[in-house]
């Protein structure tokens, strides 16, 4: 079963549920109740983007368990008191498994988890952990490293860029790995970053992409944009572009470089099964190519074949754990040592990264 709700219809159905409860109807549903799974996301879910990737991650669970699960999707829920209220409500409505799809839901969701020990909560991109509360994040940097290699091979100007949402570690690591990957092909590559300081403003994102193109950047990384704003502007200008989470190839048939895809389904399915078996334990999940969560797809055929071989080789090494993009020596933007020779950053160090590597020409906002 699948009920897709917006805030508006939620109000209607909750009102209806209230009426049903008032007439004493609730107890009748108690037998054979399916596991209620609720996904809360901050933006509207379109054909593509972050919310779409999360929603798609729940599909295999629906396919595998049919009537035994009931998935509710609550989209366009603003972070803050609204989200807290709606998460409380959806749990009160009987949903026992909650996927809180935005960093800003953290405080409300963890309080809810502590108050309701029988529910399990997965929280995107956070750092707090509780016995029934697991933060999860993707190792996008593994994919952006490979993209950097391809970008440097295709760039004629030696300048590539990124339109990025906010200067938080998750996005910074993606840019750093993109730069490091590009440097393996062209050590002098110049990476410019424009921070739009907004999760959602398609017009501004497109302006930023055009500003990068005016500075001769000929490969652009759309870092954390939910709409094809950057990708379609790049197609119009004949500039290569790639993005994260879900493929936007249909918006840029010619110049789409590829997609660093996130497939959350293996993780979601394992966690839902753990909840059903009563073995759910809160833990930090940092998932990558090795977990089949991060995957690079829809490679542009323009990437030279010998480069593609090299990329596939590195991808295999990342998957078997013999290589990490953040292995030393790595120099910071200011010239100091970022990662010493012979050492590799741990997951904990990567998720806290607040510095750019040398080669990124834009200073990091403080």
């Amino acid at each position, binding site marked *: 079963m699948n009920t897709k709700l*917006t805030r508006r219809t939620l109000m209607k159905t909750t009102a209806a549920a209230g009426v049903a409860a008032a007439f004493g109807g609730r107890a009748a549903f108690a037998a054979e109740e399916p596991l209620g799974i609720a996904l809360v996301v901050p933006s509207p879910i379109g*054909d593509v*983007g972050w919310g779409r990737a999360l929603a798609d991650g729940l599909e295999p669970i629906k396919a595998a368990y049919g009537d035994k699960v009931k998935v509710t999707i609550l989209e366009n829920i603003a972070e803050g008191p609204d989200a807290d209220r709606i998460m409380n409500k959806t749990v009160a409505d009987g949903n026992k498994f909650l996927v809180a799809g935005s960093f800003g839901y953290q405080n409300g969701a963890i309080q809810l988890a502590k108050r309701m020990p029988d529910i399990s909560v997965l929280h995107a991109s956070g750092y707090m952990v509780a016995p029934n509360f697991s933060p999860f994040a993707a190792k996008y940097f593994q994919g952006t490293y490979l993209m950097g290699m391809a970008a440097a091979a295709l760039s004629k100007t030696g300048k590539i860029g990124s339109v990025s949402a906010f200067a938080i570690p998750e996005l910074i690591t993606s840019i750093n790995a993109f730069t490091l990957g590009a440097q393996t092909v062209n050590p002098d590559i110049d990476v*410019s970053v424009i921070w739009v*300081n*907004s999760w959602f403003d*398609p017009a501004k994102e497109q*302006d930023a992409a*055009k500003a990068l193109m005016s500075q001769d950047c000929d490969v652009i990384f759309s870092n954390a944009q939910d709409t*094809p704003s950057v990708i379609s502007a790049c197609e119009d200008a004949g500039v290569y572009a790639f993005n994260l989470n879900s493929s936007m190839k249909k918006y840029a048939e010619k110049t789409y470089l590829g997609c660093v895809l996130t497939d959350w389904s293996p993780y979601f399915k394992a966690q839902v099964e753990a909840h059903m078996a009563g073995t759910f334990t809160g833990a930090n999940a940092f998932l990558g190519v090795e977990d089949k969560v991060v995957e690079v797809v829809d490679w542009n055929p323009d990437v030279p074949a010998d480069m593609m071989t090299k990329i596939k080789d590195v991808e295999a090494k990342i998957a078997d754990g013999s290589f990490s993009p953040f292995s030393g020596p790595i120099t910071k933007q200011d010239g100091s040592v970022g990662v010493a020779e012979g050492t590799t950053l741990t997951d904990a160090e990567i998720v806290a990264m607040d510095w750019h590597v040398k080669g990124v020409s834009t200073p990091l906002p403080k």
Partner: protein
Amino acid sequence: MSAVEFILASMLAAATPFLLAALGELVAERSGVMNLGVEGMMALGAALAFIIVHNGGGHFLAFLAAGLAATALSLVFAFVALGFRANQVATGLAIGIFGQGLSALFGKSYEAMTVKSLPKMSIPGLSDLPVIGGLFTQDIVVWLSLIVTLVIGIAFARSKVGLVLRAVGENPKAARAIGYPVIAIRVGAVAFGGLMAGFAGAYASVVYTPLWADGMIAGRGWIAIALVVFGTWLTGRIFLGACLFGAVSLIGLTAQTSGLAIPSQLLSSLPYIVTIVVLGIISSNKRLLKLNGIASLGEPFER
């Protein structure tokens, strides 16, 4: 292309959504009515225009439908705020939220889709000039907006229509006494405001950023209203304010690629700061402000 060339070439297009919406609001406010629903009217126009272009209706039809839909919404505002003399601020806010909701509803199945934009038209000769050449290569809507700006500016300064509109806004009782139908004129002004907001929304969704995403207007309607006030209800200043806002937003983005150590958060807030400061300075003349301010703005008219 240098950064300066890029900013000059893109500035007018960036300013157009603000300019169109602000001009509409200017006409409404000049007649003494404050309609705060611009954001919602823009959103509704944007959604409808996108749906029409996406289904092959073409840009002309899209602008027409967007304008008419937003006009209809503005007439709902007029019906409540002018017909029943309800509080204009509250009614405008309600209409704005309603419009955003409607746009989300209509646009639901078009989320994150894209369409083709309009081609750019160059002014021969001028567009080949060094550095400033880009300024003369714009899409047709930009050119038409400039003409509309000029017409509205002249209408307020020189024509009888402009004079009557201002009279109704300054002193509705006196206007009524000499025989002008105050409410009808105000309804007309509000409807014009709706039409322009609809065009502004259409420009945002099918020309400037040719895609639909719920919430894509992202506060531009509010900036348009602010431009009217900071531009002290003068067409030229509103045009200047819109261009300034557009240009400084682009400067903020380009400056980040220059490697200057300016925090990007500051650059992002720069358009707001610069526009407020510049328009604040030019409107700091108290006497002039009083002269341009609209005496009966927001007050319901009772015979």
